[in-house]
């Protein structure tokens, strides 16, 4: 599986990671899914609702914000494709905690932010057995058109 994304949307994800630094920033990926392709067409940056003391290593979106994402996706004729979040001063690989809270069929984009600068994003999918993540290749496309 490949996750298609435009440079512009990727930059918005990186900007959110840098804005939230040294805390974790997060949001939802909206887009569409066809046979062997998942395309990110929009992102929704959302507040990290974890308490102040935990936001440097935890993120959580409120159920109301998640619903906002579903509604916006529906309005635009899209799906919620997944979640993006940043790992301040940590590698862009999913952690054990990420796995325990992960949903199947979602793309999880993780960006490592080092010294306030977003470095690189990688995308991950939870296996059906929930036992681990496998990496999903991110392909930068010119535009989100067909």
């Amino acid at each position, binding site marked *: 599986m490949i996750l298609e994304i435009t440079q512009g949307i990727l930059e918005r994800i990186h900007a959110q990671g840098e804005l939230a630094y040294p805390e974790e920033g997060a949001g939802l990926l909206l887009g569409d899914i066809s046979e062997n392709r998942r395309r990110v067409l929009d992102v929704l940056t959302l507040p990290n609702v974890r308490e102040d003391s935990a936001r440097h290593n935890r*993120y959580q979106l409120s*159920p109301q914000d998640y619903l906002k994402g579903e509604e916006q996706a529906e309005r635009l004729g899209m799906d919620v494709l997944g979640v993006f*979040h940043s790992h301040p001063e940590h590698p862009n690989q999913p*952690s054990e905690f990420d796995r325990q*809270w992960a949903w199947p069929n979602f793309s999880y984009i993780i960006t490592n932010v080092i010294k306030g600068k977003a470095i690189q994003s990688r995308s991950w999918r939870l296996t059906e057995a929930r036992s681990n993540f496998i990496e999903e290749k991110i392909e930068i496309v010119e535009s989100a058109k067909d």
Partner: protein
Amino acid sequence: MYIRYRNLESETMATLKIPSPLRTYTAGEAVVEVEGATVAQAMESLVAQHPDLRQHLFNGHGELRPFVNLYLNNEDIRHLDKLATPIQQDDRLMIVPSIAGGISQVDHSAIRVNQAMIIGLSMIAFVLDLPWLVALVAFVMVAGTILKVPGFGFVYRIVLKPLNLVKPVILDDNPEPHRFAQGFGAVVLTIGAVALVIGTGLLGWGLVWLVIALAALNLFVGFCVGCAVYYWLARLEIPGFVKSPPQETFPGMRPKAKV
């Protein structure tokens, strides 16, 4: 096919909204008709229609997984009567995913210094025949378990780390199994200390050596028996034991992934 879930007195029908990530299991359907007099029956009706959903919504005891929120007419059922909440004709149920994550990390240097202190002090206690020292080690371990830190972690934190004698080894790991392992060791050592005080030396020192052996297995081999027991209890879905071993790690072994 789901006749056994039907409430014979009133066949209450409701709609249930499925979030994006679960629509693979409902053939793409965003809304499913369900029936039942309570939320629990409606959910049973859902998984009877779409069995692949079960493992993503419920644990082995039939309890909702913690990252699954259920809303009845826009109200979280945790604030109502949970799964026993009654539903009325044409109610709207909704599954809302909890979206969360982040970094989990355990400084294994603190844990290993703790083990080294437990081994060292217990051996001194044995050689010099000092039951009070066994009691002291047991007390520190009990205190650490209650405070959710390695009991002798302060030696690492205040002395060894600032002096750069022991470097931090931060691993992507769950702290809970290590706390459980320490608590288990604390209980065994406390019984050992009591046995020594009341004069059953063989039993007392036997238990002390059991704790030394388990701590040494962890310190030198990287296998935490208490953690393995924790993961085994979690697999049996015993309440309170919720964590599963880190990815690609044998339950109880020290994880490889550094963060």
